[in-house]
């Protein structure tokens, strides 16, 4: 404890929900993340933005201890993830699980409470009722006993969000929740993000649609193996930073999206 450098602290003295220092992650010899230095501010909605292969998902997985870290330090609310896992809810990419698994929507939501139950204890009526209220919050109550392969992509995404709600965490980490969802689900997710924010939760979202970043998020981290910039959307989401993040690889970035970005952040 004494040897450890002091925990980074926010202005009001509390620890950052996520604090990443000198993080390097490599798959074999290729670095996927290089020297990342990032603090996620409490009670904010933060988007992580960057091109494909920029290491966005890898960074989330490193934070959650799911991939080995080559070097660097990651702290969750000032402690190692192992000790803080009860405060973190994780929404993986929808495609990361097998939706043909023989189970129902409400059953998947109840899985969010397995952490609170610990080993051996089975979910009971209390967990079922809680899961039902989480499903209601994402507008899925009437599909609770539907087999999960019978749900649309957007409905599956909402089941995942309800499962994260059931974890009753302080920090929500979501990997591309908006990917391939219908308009109804997109609205449901945005409302959910607002509600989490109103409850003082911290939310970190890997996001792909640059156009909606200024509408949905307060903070943004621009990532492309290195961290290009991080901070409030109005300051950081600039055409220059976007060009640096995406390079010349996406042609429309310079013209169209950057114009949108600067128009929005000027608002």
């Amino acid at each position: 404890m004494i040897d450890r450098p002091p925990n980074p602290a926010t202005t009001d003295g509390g620890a950052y929900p996520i604090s990443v220092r000198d993080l390097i992650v490599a798959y074999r010899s290729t670095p996927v993340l290089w020297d990342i230095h990032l603090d996620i501010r409490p009670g904010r909605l933060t988007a992580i933005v960057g091109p494909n292969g920029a290491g966005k998902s890898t960074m989330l997985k490193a934070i959650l201890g799911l991939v080995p870290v080559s070097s660097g330090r990651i702290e969750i609310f000032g402690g190692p993830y192992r000790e803080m896992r009860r405060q973190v809810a994780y929404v993986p990419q929808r495609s990361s699980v097998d939706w043909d698994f023989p189970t129902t929507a409400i059953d998947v939501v109840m899985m969010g409470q397995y952490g609170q139950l610990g080993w051996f204890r089975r979910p009971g009526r209390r967990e079922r009722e809680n899961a039902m209220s989480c499903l209601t919050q994402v507008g899925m109550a009437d599909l609770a006993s539907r087999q999960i392969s019978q749900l649309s992509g957007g409905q599956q995404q909402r089941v995942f969000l309800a499962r994260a709600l059931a974890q009753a965490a302080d920090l929500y980490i979501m990997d591309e929740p908006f990917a391939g969802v219908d308009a109804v689900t997109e609205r449901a997710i945005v409302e959910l993000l607002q509600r989490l924010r109103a409850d003082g939760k911290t939310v970190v979202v890997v996001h792909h649609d640059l156009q909606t970043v200024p509408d949905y998020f307060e903070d943004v981290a621009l990532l492309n193996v290195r961290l290009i910039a991080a901070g409030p959307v109005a300051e950081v989401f600039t055409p220059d930073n976007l060009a640096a993040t995406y390079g010349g690889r996406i042609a429309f970035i310079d013209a169209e999206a950057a114009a949108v970005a600067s128009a929005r952040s000027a608002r």
Partner: protein
Amino acid sequence: MSFAAIIILTGALTAISCALVGSFLVLRRTAMVGDAISHSVLLGIVTVFWLTNGSRNEILMVLGAGTVGLLTVYLIELVRSSGRVREDAAIGLVFPVLFSIGVIMVSRFPQTVHIDVQHVLYGEIAFAPLRRLELFGADLGYRSLWVLGGMAAINLAFVTLFYKELKLSTFDRGLAATLGFAPLALHYALMGLVSATTVVAFDSVGAILVVAMLIVPGATAYLLTDRLGVMIALACGVGALSAWGGYVVASAYDASISGAMATVAGGILVLAVLGSPRHGVVVRAWTRARLRRRFDVRLLVAHLAGGSDPDHLSEQFRWSPSTVRRTLDLALREGYVERRDGDRLTVTPAGAALAAGTDTGR
């Protein structure tokens, strides 16, 4: 107990032991890992046999085979994580090596009578009634029932105790890891039990047919339900049914009992593929045919409402005259169309409503 009852019970206990862990192999899409383990444990059995100068101590054999089973899983994971080859290729690389070492070692013991390739590959369940379990000189009864009953009990205890954890780590390994449920440890525990189950199943069904017992009941049950608990129970039921059915078939045709059991299990799987309520070939074909008839009726009614001449419908849709007649009959029977003034076809209000909801392409 009659010979038949002991053989059927031995087969059923084997099948249930296998179905309990095999259901998870099916759900984890690692059925071929079961195949790999069932082959490579031969090395474990032979090594124990060799180290103990030919004793057939069941517990030592299970431990030896369990060790080699875990080694197999570990090596597959090692080769796969090198990133050079995919998992199926990794499985194909690892188990033949271990299996072939086992085969070579077996062939180095020509003098031994208890272990031979034939027996290891196909088993001989017909001997089950001849073997007794003796402990400190006391005769405890049929050895196979004790051994396989014990294995079934251990697997049932594991699946029951860790039901929630197995379910979570099978469905979403990432979440299981972030919640601290050690999915890797569970994975190895499951694979260790698969290995142990394979060994004790050797005597009954041998190394090759045990794969059928591990995978087929689980795969069958998977088609018949969309609840995990029900699936596991059904898999055990299918396994037990195959054991009984296999014995009946084998007696009738004087064939290999273990072969007949695997065949019956395969037969039940085929029935499930055809008749499964949701995924079944029959149900899907029937649903498609019914939908097609409904669309045909809508199309017909819409065109009649649009003033088409019924005589030209067959030409217009390229329907055979019999299709036109059948569709027209159905439309008349369901009250979308009626015959007025002798033979003239008239669209009813219900038919008009149906037609209004239809895009006729005009």
